[in-house]
C-alpha cells in the first residue's frame, strides 16, 4: 500500500512538471519496495553435487580438474538462494591404477567450488573417496599353495601374483556426491518475495536440506 502511494505520488509530481523530483521519489520508492537483502549460506551447509565427467582410477591422474554442478538447489530458511545447475569444479586429489599383486585402484576426489557470478562458493568434505576391490588375499592364498608346489616344480609360482590385478574404480558422469560449503557465503536476493513463493512449491526439497543440516555436528 505504501509502495502504491509512493508510486502514485511520483506520477502526480511528474504530471505537475517536475520530472527530476519525480525520478528521485520513484527511485526511493523502488528501493523501499525491494531493499537489498543478503542471505547467509553458513559454513558446512551440505550440498548435493553432480559430477559431469567420467572419472576413474585408471583414466584420471592426480591434479586433474573436472566439472561439477549443483544437483539440488540450496535453500536457506525456506528460500532458494542458489539454484540447481550452478556450475563448479572439482579436483582429483589422488588416482592410482589397479596393479599387480592384486592391488586395487584408488581414487580420492575433492570438490573445490561452485560459481556464483564472479564469485566462488568454496566447497569441502566431498564424500567420494574409494579404493576398488583388491585381490591381495587371493594372491596371498595362491602363494601359500605355490610355496608348497614349487618345492617339486622349478617354477617361481609366487610370481603369478604379479599378473593378478585388483579392480579399478569408475565414477560415471552423472554420479551424485555430497559435499559441504567451506565458508560463510552471502548471496544477495533481489526479490525475496518470489524466492519464498518458489519455496512453497518445493516442500520436499526444503525438508531434505533442513534434515541434512540437522544431521551435521
Amino acid at each position, binding site marked *: 500500500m505504501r509502495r502504491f502511494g509512493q508510486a502514485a505520488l511520483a506520477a502526480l509530481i511528474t504530471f505537475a512538471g517536475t520530472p527530476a523530483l519525480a525520478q528521485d521519489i520513484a527511485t526511493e520508492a523502488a528501493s523501499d519496495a525491494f531493499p537489498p537483502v543478503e542471505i547467509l549460506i553458513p559454513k558446512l551447509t551440505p550440498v548435493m553435487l553432480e559430477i559431469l565427467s567420467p572419472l576413474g582410477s585408471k583414466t584420471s591422474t592426480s591434479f586433474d580438474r573436472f566439472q561439477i554442478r549443483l544437483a539440488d538447489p540450496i535453500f536457506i530458511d525456506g528460500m532458494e538462494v542458489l539454484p540447481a545447475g550452478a556450475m563448479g569444479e572439482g579436483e582429483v586429489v589422488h588416482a592410482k591404477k589397479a596393479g599387480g599383486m592384486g592391488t586395487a585402484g584408488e581414487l580420492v576426489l*575433492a570438490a573445490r567450488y561452485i560459481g556464483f557470478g564472479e564469485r566462488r562458493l568454496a566447497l569441502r568434505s566431498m564424500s567420494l573417496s574409494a579404493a576398488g576391490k*583388491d585381490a*591381495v588375499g587371493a594372491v596371498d592364498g595362491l602363494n601359500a599353495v605355490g610355496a608348497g608346489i614349487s618345492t617339486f616344480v622349478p617354477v617361481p609360482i609366487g610370481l603369478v601374483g604379479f599378473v593378478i590385478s585388483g579392480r579399478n574404480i569408475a565414477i560415471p558422469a552423472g554420479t551424485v556426491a555430497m559435499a559441504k560449503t567451506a565458508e560463510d557465503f552471502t548471496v544477495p536476493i533481489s526479490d525475496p518475495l518470489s524466492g519464498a513463493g518458489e519455496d512453497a512449491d518445493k516442500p520436499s526439497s526444503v525438508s531434505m536440506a533442513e534434515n541434512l543440516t540437522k544431521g551435521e555436528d
Partner: protein
Amino acid sequence: MKRFAGVFLATALLVGGSTAAGAEDAAQVQIPAPPPGKGQVVFYRTGTLMGAAMGCAVNENGAKISSLGSGRYFVLVTEPGRHEYSVKSEAKDVLALEVEADETQYAMCRIKMGIMSGRPDLRPSTEAEFIKSSTDRLVDDDDMGPGPGALRAADLASALANK
C-alpha cells in the same frame, strides 16, 4: 549323550563369550575428534599373517611419522589441505589425501607380496572398515616420529578425556 551335550553347551558358551568379549574390545577403540581447526588421519594395519614381521613406516616429506606393526594403528593430527603419505620397502607407494578441518579420515596399510620381500600398500579407507578390522592396538610411542603429529598414548588419552 547328556554329558556330550553338556560339553557342547559349555564350549558354545565359551566361544560365544570370547566373541562377545572380542566385540567389546573392538568397540573400546575410540578416536577423539581433532583439535579445532585441525584435521586427522587414522592409519591402521590389519593383523594378517602376510608380511607380519615387516613394518609399514608411514612418511611425509621424507620424515617418518610412525611405523605400523601388524594389527596396530596411530592417529595423525595435521593441518587441513592436501597431504602425501608414503610407505616404502623394495617399492614405494604414495597416497594423497585431502585432510579437512575438524574431520577424521582413515588410511590402511597392507603388505602385499614382492619379489624379494613384502611391499606395503597404502590405500584410502573408511571408519567402517577400521571398525570391522578390529585393529585395537596403538603403535608404541618408541615407534612414532621423528616427524610430528602422531598422537602418543598419553596424548590420545588426554584428547579422549577432553572429548
